[in-house]
């Protein structure tokens, strides 16, 4: 198996998912099987092949620096799970953890 439960747990943390132990026990072999399958790509020589991130060779698409109407604050916040005044209310950002900070 190419992926351990511990690996899967680490990825889940990075992806901000909290699978239960039982779920991890299901996900891990499934992900392992997929990873084993995709490992076939290694057989294909790709030295010197340019990566293709995007199918269309478009370049230089811009918009003008022109003001467009913003949403009224109530419409902007209409889908918010919690709201304090005209702000989104979220759990204390102090808990953001050691790997979280703006660059």
């Amino acid at each position, binding site marked *: 198996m190419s992926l351990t439960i511990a690996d899967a747990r680490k990825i889940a943390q990075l992806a901000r998912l909290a699978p239960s132990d039982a779920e991890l026990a299901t996900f891990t072999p499934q992900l392992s099987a997929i990873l084993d399958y995709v490992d076939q790509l290694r057989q294909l020589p790709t030295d010197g092949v340019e990566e293709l991130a995007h199918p269309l060779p478009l370049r230089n698409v811009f*918009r003008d620096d022109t003001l467009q109407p913003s949403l009224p604050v109530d419409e902007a916040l209409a889908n918010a799970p919690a709201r304090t*005044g005209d702000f989104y209310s979220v759990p204390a950002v102090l808990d953001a953890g050691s790997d979280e900070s703006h660059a």
Partner: protein
Amino acid sequence: MSEPYRYVVGLEVHVQLQTRTKLFCGCSTQFGLPPNTATCPVCCGMPGVLPVMNRQAFRLAMKAALALNCRIAPFTKWDRKNYYYPDLPKNYQISQYDLPFSSEGYLEIPTTNGPKKVGIIRAHLEEDAGKSMHDESGRGGESKVDLNRTGTPLVEIVSKPDINSPEEAGAYLRELRLMLRELGVSDCEMQEGSLRCDANINIHVWQPDGSYRATPITEVKNLNSIRSVEKAVKYEGDRQYQKFLQDGKTIKDEPKETRGWSDVQEKTYFLRRKETADDYRYFPEPDLVPVTVDAAWIAEIRAEMGELPAEQRKRLQQPPYALSAYDAGVLTSQGRALVAYFEQVYAGCNDAKAACNWVTNEVLATLNDRKISIADYPIPAANLAGLIVELQKSGLNKQRAREVYAFMLDQRTDAATAIQKLGFQAVTDETTLREIIRKAIAGNPKAVADFKKGKVKAADAIKGAVMRETKGLANTETVQTLLLQELAQE
């Protein structure tokens, strides 16, 4: 260099670009709007919406990079930097990773030892996040999020660790701010967050054999004024040196540490230590297309830039101005408009030193007193030049000169009118002067006698009497010449 170590500082500066709208949508970038009133589905990261790049943001970023002597990449693209933060609604920041639009430049800063080039590693264009405010009064700690700032265009400018003192750090930021303001790239208002600085600091501690030991690097975050950057660098130098003396730990022994800065305590404080690198999972932003820049576009941007501060500073030290480095620095630091004013004054009086003194003393004092810019300054350059010429002609003393200046300022007249209204016309008529001189000779027999005995200095007393009689409005050189002639005839 009195310190037993050398500072090694690299600065990472985020500058908000002076666009009307955000980087990827048409919402306003104006500072201070009511919370969440300048947002739309795009900057709120709602499902299904797409970014489209603001051309003006790219142009301004390019202008900044060119001013920083950077190489502009012919091909650049954007990448997603993935991390979770409540004021980053997409939970990725659109930034640039391996192909920034510019790199390898430098900023020339003035130092006490002359100009110094600080290397620029790269400058790239990215979007800002919103603001989270921790609410202590909330139910067991909630934070409030305002997304108005989300998506504001930023250019991130990363310097090489070429900065070797707190003063150089300050000079770097002042020069950057001056340049970006002059170019119209950013207003660089640090208190409004449109220029933010993180400092990577360590020191090289000199060893008896002439080698050095490098201390572990600390990154000091969110410095919100140039003074705090200078102070934080100084503080970190002291702190790291004391720590090194105690534990001897070098850059190889400890990972990078992130520290905060307290303006109140004037101290840095520990935030966290990075044991492992953050995993941002960068990959090319599929919702944007790459940008290619050709020589013509670079030339077009360059043509809009005008003279940069460092160039200006150099030019003012060369003929015809030949100002001192200090004077050139003071003038340049006030911005292009003031330099242009100075140059007009010079053009009208042909005396650079006098023009500079008037501009950097009286004019600047007036601007500061009245809290106005040079554009609103009431005395046209030609009139100030006229004042300088009049003063040279008449030899009016400083006190009188200031009175004339004050009159011009208040009454908006030219120098000649002011002098006339104040009754400060110089006594230039030779016949009148000779009469006054003869009277003075007659009134000072002792001085005349001393002069005749060869005490040349004795003539000064007679000259003083002449100047008193003319209320100081006679040209001293003319008086001197005429006096000597009269004395010779005695």
